[in-house]
């Protein structure tokens, strides 16, 4: 029980706006274990930021309990809450560094707040700059740093108070792909080497794949599916999860070429199944072709995983045989329902 470093119980958050009540979170239960790198993924407006902000009570839940390391945060006095907040760091999409302080000054900031003597704080700041590989920019101001460098300073700042948890709200969404990869690698290292629990908010599946071991899918303020990342990648149960795991656009949009939208399946394979040419054998044995729509090799939490979207035979009887064949070979596949296709374009964020 107390292994849960973070526990949300029945958390509901409503906002009163001019246009009426907005329910951002509906009765959320969420347990995060020590050492987890827990991803929370969802489309824009799903309630991800609100959810992560209730963890350190930047957002006070309308209902429900928030526990940190077994301690009830909701109902603490401001002073007590501030003490607990020092054990939970946070990094942001927009970095949120102090523009008037240099890198060292920014990293010292949480230590000053905690009353650590100046010299000691400065020494620690310099050490942390090494950790984030930014020693030579110790005295640069944020206006003189690139986005990736700013986020590195923010990560060093987050580490300064030796936190047990780091909350990341879209930490890489303002960065280019290459910088994103390096920041994700840094966060991963922090999670693995220091055992710091991460809560990772994102709308990009790539971030989950590269950084997280657990994931929860949030839609309209509710967690619709949760579990092990590998497991969910293999067999997403809900439509929302499938949509997020599907290779973006290519399969869920109306096809440019006139391939059938019927009988599409997505298969996932790893080292254990990659040895045998199952699809090729199936085509030969059943004498019916399949269409390849998409294939990709992913690295998921360090392990290689492949996924493939193929279009089976158009007539139902052959398709059924093909599915039977795949099942017999122990291949995990998910059928893509017809109504999942073509919705992507309309629902994409503005």
């Amino acid at each position: 029980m107390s292994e849960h470093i973070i526990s949300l119980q029945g958390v509901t958050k409503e906002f009163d706006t001019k246009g009426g009540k907005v329910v951002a979170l509906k009765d959320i239960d969420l347990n995060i274990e020590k050492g987890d790198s827990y991803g929370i993924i969802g489309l824009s407006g799903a309630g991800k930021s609100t959810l992560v902000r209730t963890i350190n009570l930047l957002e006070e839940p309308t209902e429900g309990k928030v526990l940190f390391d077994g301690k009830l945060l909701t109902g603490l006095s401001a002073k007590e809450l501030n003490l607990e907040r020092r054990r939970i760091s946070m990094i942001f999409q927009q970095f949120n560094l102090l523009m008037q302080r240099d890198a060292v000054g920014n990293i010292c900031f949480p230590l000053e707040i905690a009353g650590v003597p100046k010299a000691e704080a400065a020494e620690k700041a310099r050490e942390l700059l090494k950790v984030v590989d930014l020693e030579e920019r110790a005295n640069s101001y944020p206006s003189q740093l690139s986005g990736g460098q700013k986020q590195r300073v923010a990560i060093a700042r987050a580490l300064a108070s030796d936190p047990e948890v780091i909350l990341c709200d879209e930490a890489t969404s303002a960065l280019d792909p290459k910088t994103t990869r390096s920041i994700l690698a840094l966060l991963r290292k922090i999670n693995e080497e220091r055992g710091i629990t991460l809560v990772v908010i994102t709308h990009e599946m790539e971030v989950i794949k590269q950084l997280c071991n657990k994931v929860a899918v949030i839609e309209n303020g509710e967690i619709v599916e949760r579990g092990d990342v590998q497991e969910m990648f293999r067999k997403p149960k809900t439509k929302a999860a499938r949509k997020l795991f599907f290779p973006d656009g290519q399969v869920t949009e109306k096809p440019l070429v006139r391939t059938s939208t019927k009988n599409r399946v997505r298969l996932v394979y790893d080292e254990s199944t990659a040895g045998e040419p199952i699809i090729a054998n199936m085509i030969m044995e059943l004498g019916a072709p399949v269409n390849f729509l998409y294939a990709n090799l992913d690295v998921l939490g360090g392990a290689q995983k492949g996924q493939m979207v193929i279009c089976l035979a158009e007539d139902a009887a052959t398709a059924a045989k093909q599915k039977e064949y795949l099942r017999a070979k122990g291949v995990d596949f998910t059928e893509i329902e017809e109504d999942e296709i073509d919705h992507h374009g309309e629902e994409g964020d503005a």
Partner: protein
Amino acid sequence: MDAQTLIRLLGEGTVQTLIMTLVGTLVSYLIGLPVGVSLIVTGPNGIKPAPLYNRTMGFIVNVIRSMPFLILMIAVMPYIRKVIGTGIGTSATTAALIVAAWPFVARLVEQSLLEVDSGVIEAAQAMGAGTMQIVRKVLLLEARPSLINGAAVATITILGYSAMAGTLGGGGLGDIAIRFGHYRFQPDVMWITILVLVVLVQIMQEIGVKLAGRLDNRLN
């Protein structure tokens, strides 16, 4: 009037004006700065909302600010006379300047602090910073360049007030302009006084801009 008398007169007037302006500005900030900070902190999106205080203080500030300076000065002079014993001269004028200027300063400070990125304040809250820590280490520091520019504006405005106060026997350059330039009809004295005022304003503006720039780490 010979040149030497004129120079002595202008010298004394300038010193008086500077003393009134600087003391008036300083004391206005001693009152206006905390009030401006408190308006931000207790505002609807502030770090410690307090609607009743916020609305009351906001109202007081607005009422005083809506009164033209000369009328306000005439209105408060009897009270100033009661407190400090005189209704004319530099000290009475300085007192009137403060009464009129602190709400102006409070609003200037409020405007500067509004420019501070709410994300940075939120980051500090997430770190467990208390209200006073956020005020000192985030709000005032991040808004420093804007606060300094605001202070230059405040000083120049208060300089203008002090010159107006001269028409009511308040001393300083305004007094000279009225007594010699206007009543004794010496337009040359009038224009020289105006020139000195213009130069003073230029210097203050220049100091403000330079200082704000030098103390802004976003630029260099």
